């Protein structure tokens, strides 16, 4: 491809320490991580006062759905990495399909989670059912909203890749959006064992 021959990687760019993406997105990521840390801490220390109630309510959760959603987010993250790698080597247009795969996995996550919510509401579970359910619904919904925002970002990146906008000298937007998506994935890696598994 023509674009490849013009973009020779700068020798220093891969050796000197650097953040993948914009500083602003990383500061935003830190703020998000701070909010999730407060949520996780509040859950864990509230549970310490209501161990039996939390354990009983947790057993009724669909752990299979939680595990499936973890697999979907991890796969989406790996696909995003492949799309970024593709753009880096100048095959962003072809490798845009990886981003499409990531978006499909993210949407499947929303469908599985939606199914869980609908089953919970059918069973009469609401925010006021118990302290556990208050945490379960609000924490997972807070994360759910982040997946939706992440998917919007991935869709924009997919479009940019498709149009050949990213290359070895123009990676900032792509890496920034990818970092945000990975953050959403990383938070779920803590959320899943915390709420669905550990008792």
């Amino acid at each position, binding site marked *: 491809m023509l674009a490849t021959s013009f973009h020779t990687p700068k020798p220093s760019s891969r050796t000197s320490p650097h953040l*993948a993406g914009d500083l602003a997105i990383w500061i935003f990521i830190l703020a998000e991580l701070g909010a999730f*840390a407060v949520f996780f801490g509040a859950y864990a220390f509230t549970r310490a006062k209501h161990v039996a109630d939390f354990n009983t309510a947790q057993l009724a959760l669909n752990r299979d759905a939680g595990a499936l959603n973890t697999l979907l987010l991890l796969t989406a993250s*790996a696909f995003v990495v492949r799309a970024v790698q593709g753009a880096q080597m100048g095959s962003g247009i072809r490798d845009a399909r990886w981003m499409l795969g990531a978006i499909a996995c993210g949407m499947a996550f929303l469908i599985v989670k939606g199914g869980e919510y609908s089953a919970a509401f059918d069973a009469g579970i609401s925010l006021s059912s118990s302290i556990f359910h208050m945490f379960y619904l609000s924490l997972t919904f807070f994360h759910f909203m982040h997946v939706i925002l992440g998917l919007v970002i991935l869709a924009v990146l997919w479009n940019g890749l498709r149009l050949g906008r990213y290359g070895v000298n123009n990676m900032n937007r792509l890496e920034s959006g990818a970092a945000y998506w990975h953050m959403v994935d990383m938070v779920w890696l803590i959320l899943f064992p915390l709420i669905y598994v550990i008792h």
Partner: protein
Amino acid sequence: MSSTETHSTARRTAALWLLLILATLLTWHLGENQGGGLLTAALLGIALIKGLIVAFDFMALRHAPPLWRILVGGWLLLVCALIGLAFWKGSLT
């Protein structure tokens, strides 16, 4: 990036993805067991390792300045330690 380098990074990503998937299946499987301090520690340890792989490899923090590695790696450590502490506290009552 040369094509051999790209090939090896793609293989690395696939290998880490497989590791993450296996770790998730292990967590899912361990969840069938009765709780307990050791199990909680194991599950938190698995979550920590998974988080570090995503942060350092997928988010490319291994190429980042030390401050950022400390901030995000520290977040993972702190969150897992706090959860461990809270579950230990809960097991005393």
